[in-house]
């Protein structure tokens, strides 16, 4: 009967080569499982923080609307932004037009915006409404609301804000056509809507 030691001695070259193969693939597996875990953790920790909305009427009658929000990225991966958009409007459900659009800002992937690893980036958007027809529509909305029991002004009206930031983590491949779950794995999509849309 042959012992383990004798058997190993007889096959030492083959065993050593197989052990190298094993260790190489084991390290690949551990590395990949760790980056998978870190991507999943990053997906959960990247959030929007402290959205601030404000509106004020300047001395010359111009309406200034401002919106700011922070994007917190505590992960070790940079975020490459594909879409950064913000728009504000008044939802005039009881009148015409049903929506009074006020401002829109949009940045696509061509802008090559990035948020570095472990960074909190604050985005500030502001718009000045000087257009006479828009201001007239807004004043009509305010007057109509006040005639129905509200007490609002141009500065305190409920302007709706919609913000959305989309991007992908680091340099992970993110343009699969068939296996779309792979895109979602490394994609970031953080929408913000005020007032919140239910349903």
């Amino acid at each position, binding site marked *: 009967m*042959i012992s383990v030691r004798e058997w190993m001695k007889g096959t030492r070259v083959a*065993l050593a080569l197989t052990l190298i193969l094993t260790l190489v*693939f084991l390290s690949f597996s551990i590395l990949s*499982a760790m*980056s*998978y875990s870190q991507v999943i953790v990053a997906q959960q920790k990247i959030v929007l923080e402290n959205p601030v909305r404000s509106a004020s009427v300047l001395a010359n009658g111009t309406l200034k609307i401002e919106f700011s929000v922070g994007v917190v990225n505590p992960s070790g991966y940079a975020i490459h932004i594909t879409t950064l958009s913000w728009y504000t409007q008044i939802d005039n459900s009881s009148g015409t037009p049903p929506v009074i659009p006020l401002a829109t800002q949009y940045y696509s992937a061509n802008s090559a915006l990035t948020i570095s690893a472990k960074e909190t980036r604050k985005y500030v958007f502001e718009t000045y409404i000087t257009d006479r027809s828009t201001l007239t529509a807004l004043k009509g909305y305010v007057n109509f609301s006040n005639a129905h029991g509200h007490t609002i002004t141009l500065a305190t009206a409920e302007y709706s804000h919609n913000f959305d930031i989309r991007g992908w983590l680091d340099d992970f*491949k993110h343009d699969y056509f068939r296996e779309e779950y792979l895109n979602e794995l490394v994609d970031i999509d953080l929408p913000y809507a005020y007032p919140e849309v239910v349903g």
Partner: protein
Amino acid sequence: MRAEREDLYGLVASALLCSTPIAYITFEFVLPNVSFPSFSSNLLVVLLIAVMTGIPAGYLNKRTDFAIVSVIAYTALGYALAFAFYSVPFMFYHVQQVIPDLYYALFLRLTVILLFVFVVGGILGMIGGQLIRDSTGRKETKLLWGE
């Protein structure tokens, strides 16, 4: 024919040592974009690695039936390891799973074809491994390489 100790050593060694390539390839096949190095879920690469993985199983096992059982054993063990690597975020990073059934069903659905490739490739590699073993055991080979 009764199994000898030597056969069991070969079986256990090849089952343990050959399982990690199977585990990595299975994991990489499901998540190619977060794996390093990535073979982009290429089935030809999977087959080549399966053949390469089968060679030690053929070399370490003298008997062909044990070599075939080794291929099946390391494939099963490697697949189980891939399952474990796939679960790492939920085992060690305290990430909550939303729909566990769907999560694991996706893994099984995507990788079931690989089991066939691993076994077929493994047996092809095993044949190569046994040929190498036979060749190195011959006196002619020793004389040829000794010159």
